[in-house]
């Protein structure tokens, strides 16, 4: 199965969706979930077809060999993130009102753009798919229709467009120095051409560009406003799922182009540490559930950034585990916003209103903090083990920050839990979740518990995925079949 279907199908569906909707509303409503299901099936099929002997493969677009044409690199790490995006969007699609043509078009386009972003092996192609995801997210962030929503989305747009221009500037710098845009070709050229100031400046510029979506410090000022004013499903999608894709792209750059560049890794590490500190401290001060979730999201993404800044398979494994875990827990927590949003004091006595909701919330936050045997504990343990193995003082400092952050997280979540199980009720108590919000939350909880039970097999397959993705020679080797003869280096077979 050709992986291009993962991109072509959602785009085709999005282009035709307004026309289909005009024919029949029900047909239009079910087109979206149908396309997502087909995408999921294709992704699983391709996953199965990547055997350990054969390994990942590359697809040349248009039949033109790399680096003249664009190449898609299909490996298990990319497929893992694609499955996360498609499954997450599918779960968040449950219970959507019928007839919202434009929101559904934007959702399909975000999925198509994310699949392309994960698979692409060409710098400028990554930029184009990143822009698809970004512009769709501006539209979705403003989809609630309130004035505050427009202002927050505008602020997000301005910051993100600034970042995208800097990303393009970084790509231009790399092209100016090496003359090529293909990631595999750059992986070969990087040690001689990009291991200097130009390379580091290009990386910093690209990091700012991708960091807006990845909620890196200091370009994450858009997060609290957008999460407060966007519909909860959109915030769940943006913060829980799309941000991980931006981090995946940063990881690819680090592994392929900046493999031996310690300054690049340290830059990401420091930004991750700052994100964790600022996120947790702000969450401690927050008095509104939306803000707690927003700042906690920033902190968790800082953890993933720290994990990806650890060179080698251990870092990739920890980062992927943290990313997947957060992608399950945060959207589920965001389902609570509609009913439980607002002042934290309103949450008092929530257990009396609905015990099921309170227990659900409690389990999710326990996993977020990292209490065994829930998956969050394993993910954080992987991060600590990976950072400890490096014996670099900066990484030891990062471990200390992560531990302090866990303590702070426990503090404010215990505060919320105590409020929930209190006995007195405030004047305006919270209401129970409706079924259209409860269903996705329960589905995500099911996934979480399943992964808690299947920790062993999941760990083994994650190890395989990480070791495949961590070695840039694997990447170069598996893209060489689609390489043009005049560019193959003399050292290749």
């Amino acid at each position: 199965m050709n992986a291009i279907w993962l991109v072509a199908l959602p785009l085709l569906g999005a282009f035709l969706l307004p026309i289909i909707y005009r024919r029949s509303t029900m047909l239009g409503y079910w087109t979206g979930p149908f396309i997502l299901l087909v995408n999921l099936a294709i992704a699983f099929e391709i996953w199965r077809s990547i055997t350990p002997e054969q390994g990942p493969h590359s697809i040349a677009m248009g039949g033109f060999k790399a680096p003249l044409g664009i190449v898609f690199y299909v490996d298990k790490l990319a497929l893992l993130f694609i499955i996360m995006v498609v499954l997450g969007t599918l779960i968040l699609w449950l219970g959507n009102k019928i007839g919202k043509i434009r929101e559904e078009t934007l959702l399909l386009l975000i999925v198509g753009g994310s699949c392309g972003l994960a698979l692409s092996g060409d710098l400028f192609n990554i930029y184009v798919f990143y822009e698809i995801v970004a512009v769709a997210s501006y539209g979705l962030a403003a989809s609630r229709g309130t004035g505050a929503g427009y202002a927050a989305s505008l602020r997000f747009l301005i910051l993100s467009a600034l970042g995208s221009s800097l990303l393009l500037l970084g790509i231009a710098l790399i092209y100016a120095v090496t003359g090529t845009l293909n990631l595999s070709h750059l992986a070969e050229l990087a040690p001689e051409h990009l291991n200097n100031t130009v390379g580091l400046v290009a990386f910093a510029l690209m990091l700012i560009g991708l960091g807006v979506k990845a909620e890196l410090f200091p370009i994450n000022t858009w997060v609290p406003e957008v999460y407060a004013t966007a519909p909860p499903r959109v915030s769940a999608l943006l913060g829980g799922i799309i941000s991980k894709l931006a981090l995946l792209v940063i990881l690819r750059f680090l592994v392929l182009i900046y493999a031996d560049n310690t300054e690049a890794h340290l830059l990401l590490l420091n930004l991750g540490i700052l994100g964790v500190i600022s996120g947790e401290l702000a969450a401690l001060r927050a008095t509104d559930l939306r803000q707690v979730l927003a700042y906690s999201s920033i902190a968790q993404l800082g953890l993933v950034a720290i994990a990806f800044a650890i060179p080698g398979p251990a870092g990739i494994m920890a980062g992927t585990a943290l990313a997947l875990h957060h992608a399950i827990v945060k959207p589920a927590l965001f389902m609570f916003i509609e009913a439980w949003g607002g002042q934290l004091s309103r949450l008092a006595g929530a257990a009396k209103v609905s015990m099921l909701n309170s227990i659900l919330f409690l389990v999710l936050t326990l996993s977020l903090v990292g209490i065994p045997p829930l998956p969050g504990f394993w993910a954080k343990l992987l991060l600590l083990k990976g950072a400890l193995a490096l014996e670099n003082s900066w990484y030891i400092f990062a471990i200390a920050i992560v531990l302090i952050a866990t303590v702070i997280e426990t503090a404010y979540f215990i505060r919320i839990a105590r409020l929930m199980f209190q006995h007195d009720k405030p004047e305006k108590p919270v209401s129970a979740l409706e079924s259209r919000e409860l269903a996705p939350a329960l589905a995500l909880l099911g996934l979480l518990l399943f992964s808690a039970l299947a920790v062993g097999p999941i760990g083994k397959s994650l190890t395989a995925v990480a070791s495949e993705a961590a070695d840039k020679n694997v990447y170069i080797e598996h893209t060489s079949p689609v390489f043009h003869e005049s560019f193959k280096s003399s050292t290749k077979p």
Partner: protein
Amino acid sequence: MTIEETAWIYILSYSGALGLILLGIIGMVISRHLIRIILGLMLLEAGVNLFLITIGYRANGVAPILVDGQVPAAIMVDPIPQALVLTAIVIGVAVQALALALVVKTYKAYGTLDTQELAEKIAQESGTRIVDGIPVSLPVPATRQLVEEKSA
């Protein structure tokens, strides 16, 4: 033209691009008027596009177009940055159009285009107060504390 003369083309073009980029970023950061911020964004994008195009220039190069089916005798400039800039310009236009639509809706909702006034109006609306640039929820009615703060 000799190599030294073509070097001046590069220098002027790169400096122009750098100047536009810096002007754009400065405009975006310092302005308080939404339209000026968007104009700064346009300058920034123009600067990046100019930078990208300059990369493709070759000394004494001609356009990469075959006239009468013949490859031109002189050296042709690099076609890749031209294709990249085409895409980047279209993407920039799309983002700017969306930005302007959002500005129109924000103006309809709040009646002002000044970022500081907007922040205060939004904060008042949601019952929060801006502390160190971060909105903080208030447990009491917003207006009373704002008045107290102004008089303090």
